[in-house]
């Protein structure tokens, strides 16, 4: 699904290309043929049948993420994710993944600002086993210093590898901190190193007891199954687990932006110079249902990203890379999946390392042109068509639709809203797009970041 436009490489000046008139594709009603129900203890269950291969993909998604952590301990959600693979009452430490391996499966987990998700992919005949194991670790985790403290070293290593050793990782972390001055999305999911060094077994235990319960979780099963099969297994495995009182998620919100923020990082490990600007935007969920039947701007921003980026035919690539020849790549994207805020981004890499300023000027000029002259009906129709085709392609995957459901429901959205995405995209007008652009693409709303290689190549 084109919820976050892919990186662009090429583009074309659309005004010059005559394309056959496009009938906007009919929106599909039941995108994933999903069936959903809720157990008595509050566990939400979603089934996504897919019979191409005799395989199932299971997810257990907890509606808690890094942004729900205590101040000074926001990385504990991710730490707990690691610790969930340690001992339970029934399993030895590390046994979870070993058993999945025995079954020929794959398993992993991820933590975002809003959710912690655990997932496995196995041959269909093993669904009962992996569901039993998820139900077990939902409530029976046994945390001791013996297993917790070495894992703290592992997450410090992970931070070293994925952030500190990677200049774009470091810069991305700085951008987040700048774009969110008050909201917890500004803190890194993995945590700040000096805080991670102090995480304790008690911290993990407290977080686990506070947030992990069936009424704060979603079970998603995609693959060669029926809803009836899943219901029976869910009742058997999760049914006996009692609901618990779960805190409300309350986060500090952002005040209005007043000043453009600019960051730069020079590093010998940076491969080539690049530039990006991130604008704070509403997300699908946070934009909600606007008054007077107007379109939720998140959908308009998706269409805008497709017009500016478009994979191979967006404005930015066409202008900066092909026509002006000053950039080696240029594009845009909109990410609207988070619970509280979304982000609209533009980016470019210069053709010549010392021409970064010229590239920024050219990007600014394109944004001004957009805000002044708007978008054409043809551009909007073509962008919407491409997004609809993307949503068909998204069905050709086992994990993909499950992940979309996980993100939507985990961030307190609904399945109905997710299913309605194609219709809502189809309803976006040129006017919606330009209004959304004008609301979001203001200078003071943006964090501009440049990454430069430092010194000569070693």
């Amino acid at each position, binding site marked *: 699904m084109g919820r976050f436009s892919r990186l662009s490489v090429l583009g074309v000046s659309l005004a010059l290309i005559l394309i056959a008139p496009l009938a906007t594709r009919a929106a599909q009603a039941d995108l994933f043929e999903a069936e959903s129900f809720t157990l008595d203890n509050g566990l939400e269950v979603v089934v996504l049948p897919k*019979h191409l291969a005799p395989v199932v993909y299971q997810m257990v998604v907890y509606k808690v993420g890094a942004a729900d952590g205590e101040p000074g301990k926001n990385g504990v959600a991710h730490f707990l994710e690691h610790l969930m693979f340690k001992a339970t009452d029934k399993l030895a430490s590390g046994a979870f993944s070993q058993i999945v391996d025995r079954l020929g499966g794959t398993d992993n987990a991820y933590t975002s600002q809003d959710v912690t998700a655990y997932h496995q992919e196995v041959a269909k005949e093993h669904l009962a086993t992996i569901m039993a194991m998820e139900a077990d670790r939902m409530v029976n985790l046994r945390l001791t210093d013996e297993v917790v403290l070495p894992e703290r070293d592992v997450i410090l290593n992970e931070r070293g590898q994925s952030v500190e050793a990677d200049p774009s990782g470091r810069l991305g972390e700085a951008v987040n901190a700048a774009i969110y001055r008050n909201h917890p999305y500004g803190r890194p999911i993995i945590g700040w190193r000096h805080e991670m060094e102090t995480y304790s077994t008690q911290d993990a235990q407290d977080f686990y007891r506070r947030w992990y319960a069936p009424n704060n979780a979603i079970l998603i099963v995609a693959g060669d199954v029926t809803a009836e099969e899943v219901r029976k297994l869910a009742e058997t495995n999760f049914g006996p687990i009692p609901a618990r009182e779960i805190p409300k998620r309350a986060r500090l919100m952002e005040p209005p932006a007043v000043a453009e923020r600019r960051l730069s990082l020079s590093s010998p490990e940076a491969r080539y110079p690049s530039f990006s600007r991130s604008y704070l935007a509403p997300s699908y969920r946070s934009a909600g249902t606007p008054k007077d039947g107007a379109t939720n701007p998140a959908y308009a921003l998706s269409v805008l990203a497709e017009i500016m980026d478009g994979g191979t035919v967006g404005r930015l690539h066409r202008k900066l890379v092909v026509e002006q020849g000053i950039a080696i790549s240029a594009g845009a994207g909109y990410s609207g999946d988070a619970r509280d805020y979304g982000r609209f981004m533009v980016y470019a890499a210069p053709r010549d390392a010392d021409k970064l300023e010229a590239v920024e000027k050219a990007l600014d000029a394109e944004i001004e042109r957009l805000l002044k002259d708007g978008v054409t009906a043809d551009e909007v129709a073509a962008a919407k068509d491409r997004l609809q085709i993307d949503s068909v392609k998204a069905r050709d995957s086992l994990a993909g639709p499950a992940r979309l459901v996980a993100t939507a429901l985990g961030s307190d959205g609904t399945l109905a809203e997710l299913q309605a995405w194609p219709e809502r995209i189809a309803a976006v007008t040129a006017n919606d797009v330009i209004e959304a652009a004008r609301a979001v693409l203001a200078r003071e709303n943006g964090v501009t970041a440049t990454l430069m290689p430092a010194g000569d*190549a070693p």
Partner: protein
Amino acid sequence: MRSRLITLAAALVLMALAPAAPAAEVQRVTSPGGIEAWLIADDAVPIMSVAFAFRGGNSLDPVGKEGLAQLASGMLDEGAGDLDSAAFQQRLAQRGIDFGFDANNDDFSGHLRVLTEYRDEAADLLSLALTQPRFDPEPLERMRRQFLISIQGENRSPDTVANRVLERHLLGDDPYARPTYGTEASMSGLTADDLRGFVRERFTRDRFLVAVTGDIGAENLGLWLDRAFGKLGKSGPADNLEEATVNPAGALLVVERDIPQAAVFFAQEGIKRDDPDFFAAYLMNYTLGGGGFSARLMSELREKRGLTYGVSTDLVTLDRVGLIAGHFETPNDKVAETLEILRAEWQRMATEGPTEAELAAAKDYLLGYYPRNLTSTSRAADTLLGIQKSNLGIDYMDKRQQEIAAVTLDDVKRVAKRLLDAKALTIVVAGKPTGLQGAEPAPAQ
């Protein structure tokens, strides 16, 4: 296994004996024009994926023209026939046709994914790309520029430099050890004529493989194959590369870089895909480092000691050489300790091989994971193409069960002894490792 696991383990043994669901039906389709494809038909989603390859990859780039295959792979969707770059890209984008090419050491491959309603248009565009690519000056210079920037970026990357050092030490002057995109000099010198020659000589039916999965039946696929590939030339020059020889002398080399964490790459000679002991070697590697959290190295380095976020080993099976290779990252002051454990585990596997329990676990995985290769039309098409490339036969997905089950513990122990030798390991460390015994600075690249 610890006592807590027994009940679950017993259940698992029973499950492992239960036959896996049958693999999808693979049909051999021959087009009216004589092009053969393998097909898995499935109409759940109105989409078709095509994976195809021409044997012969980067290794065939002439000396002085390294990067030719890579440049070609980037240029094929930049204009063909009467459609210039912009027009061609517009056609692809507007129909949502996913279209891409890639060159690796041994072959030049392409993939296509398209909605059913646009598949004929996709066939026409593919045919043009493969037989009449334009290589116009503007897109060529733009693409060349992108590759030059990649080359410069790779020259800066400690990981890439370390890997190059590793490959050179192991394989010397063999084309496998050349930088993927060539050098700045070779990439700068490539011309449109070079590219046209490449397409003419290498995109021929005598080295062509194709696999399809999705919403199409055998008869329509036959017509589609001729529409997409019917204009390819019949044959091209033969490939004359010899087997590569692997340096048996181990080494410990340091690429000094001021980075907070050291990146370590290691390898020695391994085994090729057509070796009768391939599955024994695969099972051995799974136990040593290929099996994720089930592997010995992960257990020793991450689980027990927190020395790294991840460590893995792989069998690298190329047409002309086989290697066993691995990598991990660790803080600079932990490199020495980690390498000592790595070498000890390497040697322990060589002398003792895996245990019965470890072999059973590895076999269960190998038998159980395969259906996961078929969960999307593109994965399934790629899987079929992989089977074709390795000449494993159209019934491979059924045969492999028996082959794997037939491997004994003695087989794996024998193969471990035959292949693994900690003294033959070439280890390259990028970073500023402290306290390393016997390390030498890597030769300049």
